[in-house]
């Protein structure tokens, strides 16, 4: 919209900018805090009133944090685990959502309810039997142990089904008439159309997995297989808990995800646009 800048509009813009900056500061403040604390000395963090900005580029905490835990390795492990789960979920959920949308079969609603029910079963309710199973399969300390139990998703199936339903049924019927197979129709028509929904699911499942705490702790033994969230816990020394070292670890973990996030943000939003979750 091309407006000539009227005085009214200018005032509005100023108010808008003020609100934007205010909200931005509020959102960023916790992150700034982590950066700030990570560069304070032991004495400085105990001071009151608190230091709101570092006084020098003090990097000892970072060295300390990296010495205490191989954070890079943890990041890699988390990334691999989350990527595996993400790909697995995209695969299983698109297949299932396809069946729920385009195939008419008996007990469809029952099956759909079964899928939804999985969303409602708290993971905590099944964790002990699952844990014993992973042990029995000898999957401890493996990526399949970290990833496979999460490779199906009721939520993702629901999400994709909602999106698939916006694809005209006639498209499917016509394709079938032309002798196209289900898989062909799914991969060449449905999936490309559903990219925004797939993107949402991808981001969501990646983050969910990346955030896992209890499961990786249970099934990984060796330091090689630990994930980031556990790594951060490693920095919490029960006897000599120092916020500056912990925050240094937090910052180290945040840097790669932030860089990636800032670079991919535009595409992410674009990917989500066109009615990410139109339903």
């Amino acid at each position, binding site marked *: 919209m091309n407006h000539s800048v009227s005085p009214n509009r200018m005032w509005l813009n100023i108010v808008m900018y003020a609100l934007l900056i205010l909200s931005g500061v509020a959102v960023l403040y916790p992150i700034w805090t982590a950066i700030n604390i990570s560069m304070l000395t032991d004495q400085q963090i105990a001071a009151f009133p608190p230091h709101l900005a570092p006084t020098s580029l003090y990097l000892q905490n970072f060295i300390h944090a*990296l010495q*205490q835990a*191989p954070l890079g390795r943890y990041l*890699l492990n988390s990334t691999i685990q989350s990527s595996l789960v993400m790909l697995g979920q995209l695969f299983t959920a698109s297949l299932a959502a396809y069946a729920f949308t385009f195939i008419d079969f008996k007990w469809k609603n029952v099956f759909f309810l079964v899928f939804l029910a999985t969303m409602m079963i708290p993971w905590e309710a099944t964790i002990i039997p699952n844990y014993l199973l992973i042990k029995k399969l000898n999957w401890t300390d493996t990526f399949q142990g970290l990833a496979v139990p999460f490779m199906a998703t009721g939520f993702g199936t629901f999400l994709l089904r909602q999106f698939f339903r916006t694809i005209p049924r006639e498209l499917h019927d016509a394709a079938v008439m032309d002798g196209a197979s289900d898989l062909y129709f799914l991969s060449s028509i449905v999936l490309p159309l559903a990219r925004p929904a797939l*993107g949402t699911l991808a981001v969501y499942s990646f983050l969910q997995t990346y955030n896992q705490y209890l499961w990786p702790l249970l099934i990984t*033994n060796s330091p090689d297989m630990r994930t980031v969230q556990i790594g951060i816990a490693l920095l919490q020394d029960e006897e000599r808990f120092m916020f500056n070292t912990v925050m240094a670890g937090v910052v180290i973990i945040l840097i790669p995800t932030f860089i990636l996030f800032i670079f991919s943000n535009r595409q992410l939003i674009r990917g989500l646009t066109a009615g990410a979750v139109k339903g």
Partner: protein
Amino acid sequence: MRKPFYVVLVSLVVLSMLLAACGGAAPTTAVTQPTTPPSAGGAQPTTAPTAAPAAAEATATVKAAVPTAVPTATIAPPKSERATKIEFWHSMAGDIGGKAIPQMANDFNTSQDKCYVTPIYQGSYDDSLNKLKAGLQSNQTPAIVQVYDIGTRLLVDLGVATPVQNYIDKEKYDISDLEGNVLSYYTVDNKLYSMPFNTSTPILYYNKDMFKAAGLDPEKPPRTFDEFAADAAKLTQKDASGKTTVYGAAFAIYGWFFEQFLAVSGGMYVDNNNGRDGFATKATFNGPEGLNIFQWWQKMVNDGVMANYGRKTVDTRNAFLAGQTAMFIDSTAVLRGMMDSTKGKMDIGTAFLPRPTEDAYSKWGTIIGGGSLWIVNNRPTAEQDCAWEFIRFQSSPEEQAYWWTMSGYFPIRKSAYDTTVGKDWSAKYPQYTTAIDQLHQTPVNRVTQGALIGVFPSARATIETGIEEILSGKSTPHFPLDNAAQTVTQAIQDYNASMGLK
């Protein structure tokens, strides 16, 4: 349009790989300046056992600089391929788990070629114990596991441990140099089940400068509950607007502290003499001694002379360091960290844990806390033998002196105090003498041996909830204390039933 996600994904993987490489390379920074670990404080490792491994550490970290190597590989590889390899699960985070324990393992590994120990940090005590429980069902266990003091009864009942007493008897290993009070805690049915590893007791820390400012004698810290409350009142400062700027004292809401106050009051936590003359069947901490503690604690908070910084002891500690409270209670293990971070800024005094009355000092005392090393009996005999070898090694005077000065935990061996490292350390941290005196002056009896129950962790959490209830002003001390006792009794009975203990 789909490309962005691939881009994101691929770059994420690449980036974290890079970071993994950095993580691997990072320890090399330490290698360039191995003599200045950030907070290693006093006693520089000058004695033989520590100097040699420092070199070993250096070579190991150079190897770790190869991107694919495990960054934590500060442990030198085994000298011999035929060495029996054992795992040692521990729960020491920070410098202790990251440096002191790998150092000890290195010392051990290089001292002989029969056994090779790999220490693995397994998260908190609770995490580690839960992993052990699960591991027992699938035979994935370490040969040595560090378990907290309050897990003792559970491990004995589960029958998963080979008592170290077996080895002591077999080798006629001399334990007369080991601390009696410490051994007594881990002695169950006249057998020493596990070897004490990290041992501490709680002491009173106070700010001498504030004592002076309040007109109190900084060399005469409070000894009884009443004196403590009176001093706390005197130490409390308010500004013009009536806002409290300094609280006289602060206790973290930590069940361990309650247990300690109960012990110095002569109270038993559970029946059957703290579960040491037979299985505990019910909680008894809600007797007059326990009630007295709850009332004392609640009154100080209600009077506004004691602050409440929550359950985490570190928060209370930080409040003290920030000059917001004049006295607090904490483990002896934090002493060094406290001293180092206040060097030249604050004059810290230490004292015995306050008792209800003066004559309680001669009758009872504090219970040792911390953890001990257990030999897991489902490992092959060769591994168990190696576990014992390591345990014996780490309890040598030199290793104990190193352990003490690195971690701040008591050495379990009296002669560790006589080593050069030990003497230097005592001179540097005279406040630690209080801790040693308190340990040595405690008579060994059923009260000070501490309670043995299989459900201790949950009992402790139950007490903590009870304390939170009285501090939130919801009720009088009776109800939360009695409720807590009831809950714990139920838990003990469930435990006994499920374990077939009658």
